[in-house]
């Protein structure tokens, strides 16, 4: 059964008081869970939040399922999100993503055997002048070339 750390619970309590409605704390609390739960949100984490926040599970689930940044399944240590919207496609990100999947022998959304990577295609991340780009966990990597991207991934242990 997932439990937030003491600091995590403290954070949720603070967020509950931060906004005019306590439901506004759902998004920040889900982020906190994701941070403490290796990048994804499990069903028991929702139950835990529901208890902690005194908000029905269904209400939290509604928010949880609406937003794409909350992962519904486990992800690798590094979540590599490759932008496949217009400008990045023009700069070759689809080919780049395919090469990652081939090299690491994994399907999109799955975790590599060593637990390091999950690769997903995402929509525009607002870095189109520096296409092709990808986001790894919180960080943007812009102005990529296939070689540069490869080196970045090899550097992540």
């Amino acid at each position: 059964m997932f439990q937030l750390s003491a600091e995590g619970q403290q954070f949720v309590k603070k967020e509950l008081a931060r906004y005019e409605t306590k439901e506004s704390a759902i998004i920040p609390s889900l982020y906190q869970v994701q941070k403490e739960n290796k990048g994804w949100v499990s069903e028991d984490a929702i139950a835990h939040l529901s208890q902690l926040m005194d908000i029905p599970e269904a209400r939290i689930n509604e928010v949880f399922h609406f937003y794409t940044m909350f992962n519904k399944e486990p992800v690798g240590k590094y979540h590599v999100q490759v932008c496949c919207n217009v400008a990045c496609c023009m700069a070759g990100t689809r080919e780049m993503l395919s090469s990652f999947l081939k090299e690491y022998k994994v399907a999109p959304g799955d975790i590599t055997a060593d637990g390091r990577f999950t690769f997903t295609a995402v929509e525009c991340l607002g870095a189109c002048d520096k296409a092709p780009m990808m986001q790894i966990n919180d960080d943007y990597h812009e102005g990529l070339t296939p070689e540069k991207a490869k080196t970045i991934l090899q550097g992540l242990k």
Partner: protein
Amino acid sequence: MAETKIITEHYHDDKFRGLAGYQAKGGYEMLKKALKMQPAEIITLVKESGLRGRGGAGFPTGMKWSFLPNNGEPRYLLCNADEGEPCTFKDRMMMERAPHQLIEGMIISGFAVNSKKSYIYIRGEYVYAAKVLEEAIAEAYKAGLLGKNILGSGFDHDLDIYRGAGAYICGEETGMISSLEGLKGQPKLKPPFPAVKGYLGKPTIVNNVETLASVIYILRDGVAEYRKCGTQKSPGTKLFSVSGDVVKPGNYEVPLGYKLLDLINNECGGLKPGRTLKAVIPGGTSAPVLNKAEAEAATLDYECLAGMQSMLGSGSIVIIDDSRCMVDMINVITHFYHHESCGQCTPCREGTGWLHKLTRAIISGEGTEKDIDTLCKVADNMKGRTICALSDAAALPVLSFVPKFRSEFEFYVREGVSQVKGISYAQMHH
């Protein structure tokens, strides 16, 4: 007139990010000035400046502000920093390079509309920009620029930041309000407009990052000076995010009314060697595509692009050269809108799915000539029938790509490969 840096004048200076550096360049002087004025005077100035919303809709800002009812209810100011329109990246740059500029613009605007509380709603992916803003907000509080009795004026204003979590629809103002309230980010029926009934049912003004920052310079330069830039109906400068097939993509601040071709050739260093212009998406992927002749005649103002049945939108311009397959591009676009439909209105939920299914069938070599017509028919049925504009935003690209580049669609259906590239995109992600 070429690139005219008013908002972005000091963006090259790293110190401009911090409070001291921002103040060294005159930062927060306009806040001091504003706090000595009457709020109504500021609203009048903004009205007379002709400033129009920079987020996409281009609605006159001063007019929006004057829709607030005088019923004594608390008012909220929300900054729309959701920046989800594909190929737009100006707000991100503004927040990362000049967080205090946005904060100053917000306090002035908050004072003008008599709001004691504002939020910056920033898209979840902009982790770094959110961090920069949080630090700047803390600095501003410490310096007495936010909180109680700002600079001894008697005006109180609190500012907080709220991170979204990945949903294009939250850039729609009522969707954003739903999201901030802790709900799914689904848009609400208008009227009532947010100015009357917004966040928590209270009067709420929602303005884009660039719009709020512009208010500072209207105050600094005065209406007459501000209007010297731009056109009669589209005054001022605007930031354009240029991407795609140019030598130097990036954000450029130019006067409204600037020639699209000049932006491409002067600021952006022209097309890539040996290539010719094929098409331009002038205002984010929702904006109908311009063909070569239209692009060559276009000026970057609300009226000219509306006259071409397209729009200035958020000011994100995608340059497309002769090496691109338009069938592939529209398939990427229909995939996006299908992914982002919030699902509450049937024409959008079903329509975006059908648009993508049809473009996908064509791309896969399974399409028929009839599918091309069905694509347009479905798109046509999605217009003006839903709570918000996402449905139209999905339909309009289809209704411009297909008629303007129909021969490419017909070729793809007939031969199973792209007319331009000679290859099939069947194995591609979308």
